[in-house]
């Protein structure tokens, strides 16, 4: 399919635009009337859906960019070059989504810039804030060649390609720190977070699981884009990503078991509690099942089976972020008798963020050279 043949207005796009408009109204309502009016957050549940999915989950879903950029520009694995632009674009959109959501989630959106000037180096939240800003700028730089090409700005294009390796190394550093910092956020609350997830390994498990998720997101998006935009599926890339996933999944599995055994004990996962069951689901769906499937070589060479594995990993690791940010705290928060279930407006805004990412990606495929090298 040629870029020209991609239709902007389709029934699906119309639905996305409608959801985004609703999300815009929710954002406006939240700004005018406050968090209490728009969300179901309360004193026992200061963080809800927006933090768990849009921010903590969104950043993990956006891990693909630094992995593929690192593979192509630092390791010079040219094989992955055809997907590097798509991966960077996706990550960029994911970070925009996370940054917008955190701005609306904090009590004073118009003070979002405060951490930049009021440094507090003891705070993981400060580290996270600095990384969001720096990495979003880095991603904009990494994505800029696509815009410079379109706008026919050869001098700027030349300059960016000259500094690209340095920018990518900086991006890898920021991602490493940012992904792990989001886990480190919860280190301070050992008496609140269920022992199934807490412990000093948490930041490192966030990093490794983000890499696992990132690889599968890139694979998922490549297959999906291939289907939607009618490209030929690049099998060597997909099997390469699957092989990488297997290695990282084994590492993550070992870390998870080690953390469980040295922490609350293996039995804690099987005690029948909600937290225990959530832990089991997360492990089965996101780690154990994909790991077993990935070990079978013929499954790694079939698009459909890779796609299924991608979906499992994505669901499982996103559930892990929900577990750490919400379900793992439920036992403690519930003691005060206060409950939390996201409000309709919270759901609408989250759906609007996802709609934005999908639609913006579609537009960039149509108007920018996201899939170069004759894939069209």
């Amino acid at each position, binding site marked *: 399919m040629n870029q020209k043949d991609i239709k902007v207005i389709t029934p699906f796009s119309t639905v996305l635009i409608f959801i985004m408009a609703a999300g815009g109204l929710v954002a406006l309502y939240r700004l005018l009337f406050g968090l209490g009016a728009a969300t179901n957050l309360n004193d026992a549940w200061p963080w809800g859906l927006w933090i768990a999915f849009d921010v903590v989950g969104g950043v993990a879903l956006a891990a693909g960019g630094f992995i593929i950029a690192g593979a192509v520009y630092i390791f*010079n694995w040219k094989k992955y070059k055809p997907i590097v632009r798509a991966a960077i674009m996706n990550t960029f959109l994911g970070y925009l989504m996370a940054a917008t959501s955190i701005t609306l989630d*904090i009590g004073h959106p118009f003070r979002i810039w405060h951490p930049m*000037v009021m440094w507090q180096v003891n705070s993981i939240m400060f580290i996270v804030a600095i990384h969001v800003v720096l990495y979003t700028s880095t991603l904009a730089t990494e994505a800029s060649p696509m815009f410079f090409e379109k706008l026919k700005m050869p001098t700027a294009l030349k300059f960016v390609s000259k500094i690209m390796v340095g920018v990518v190394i900086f991006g890898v550093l920021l991602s490493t*720190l940012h992904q792990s910092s989001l886990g480190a956020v919860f280190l301070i609350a050992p008496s609140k977070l269920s022992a199934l997830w807490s412990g000093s390994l948490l930041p490192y498990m966030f990093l490794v699981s983000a890499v696992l998720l990132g690889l599968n997101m890139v694979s998922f998006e490549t297959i999906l884009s291939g289907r939607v935009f009618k490209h030929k599926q690049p099998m060597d890339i997909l099997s390469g990503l699957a092989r990488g996933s297997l290695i990282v999944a084994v590492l993550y599995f070992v870390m998870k078991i080690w953390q469980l055994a040295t922490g609350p004990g293996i039995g804690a996962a099987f005690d029948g509690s909600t937290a225990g069951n959530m832990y089991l689901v997360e492990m089965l769906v996101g780690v154990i099942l994909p790991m077993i499937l990935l070990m079978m070589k013929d499954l790694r060479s079939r698009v459909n089976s890779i796609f299924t594995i991608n979906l499992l990993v994505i669901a499982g690791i996103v559930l892990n972020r929900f577990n750490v940010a919400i379900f793992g705290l439920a036992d403690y928060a519930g003691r005060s008798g206060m409950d939390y279930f996201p409000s309709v407006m919270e759901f609408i805004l989250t759906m609007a963020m996802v709609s934005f990412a999908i639609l913006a990606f579609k537009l960039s495929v149509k108007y920018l050279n996201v899939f170069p090298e004759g894939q069209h």
Partner: protein
Amino acid sequence: MAMNRRDFLKVAAGSGLLLASDIGSASASTPETLPPQAVGILYDATLCIGCKSCMVNCKTYNSVPGGALFLKGRDIPYETTHYEQGIWDAPVDLSSRTVNIIKVSKSGTAVNKDSTENGYSFVKQHCMHCISPACVSVCPVGALKKDPVNGVVYYVEDRCIGCRYCMIACPFKIPRYEYEYALPQVRKCQLCHHRYTEGKYSACCEFCPTGASIFGKVVDLRKEAQKRLSLKTGEEYDFPVQTVDSKFTMRRQVSKYINHVYGQTEAGGTQYLMLAGVPFDWIGFNKNIDKTFLPELTWAYISKIPAVAALVIGAGTLTWAITSRKNKDKGES
């Protein structure tokens, strides 16, 4: 590799990260010893009669400029949830309008004071004013600060971005948020530090009729608490009222105490201390609070960042140098 805060700042400064920031004040934000003039409160549940005078006066004296509940244009924030037109202040828990609360735990017929068998006990809940507060260490903008002299943990409203990380970090569930406002604040007890310049002290202690809450220097309060634990049950003792060094005392029989001063070691020690006749978890306090300084848990991670940064940049550059040369050798570049 780990380093202390001062070294971290040196490294951060050396790598040019230190631009136009007030980092100096940040570095002093996680103290690990009791400030010399630290003040606090000792609450003795066996003396508390549940009159809630402390709650009423807390609201009254904190609804003035500088107070923990002050909001321009708002009167004293009574909570009348249960009575739509009611005049009664009837909060059931700490909230953005109640930063000090008396609660009661009871069992069975609830006739025996300070007993878990068919008995009851009061408890007073408000900010513990930790020696090394988790809330202060996690705040990304330094909106929560610990006074270096008197150790009061206080809130600087115009810095706060409202991320609510303090609420996640606090092991005592103290900070509360004004979800109802478009421009909200975090609310918590600030030990009436706005009253010290007038020579006054915490309103809850000034208006406690029985001496259940007494104000004073933490070192003196610790001594007083230990002294009470060493007394024999039934013995007569002159309990100071209002302040620990008060001349105004009340003579009464000593009740049975649980042999523990809550706040002596919890979260590494706090400036609010408690005595009770029943186990503290029975009156709603978490038993599993770490006995170490909580900020160290995150610092263990943060202190590794400079080393990780050096490693990633070094290894990344080296890898690129090697792989791009290899490519050239192959004539691919």
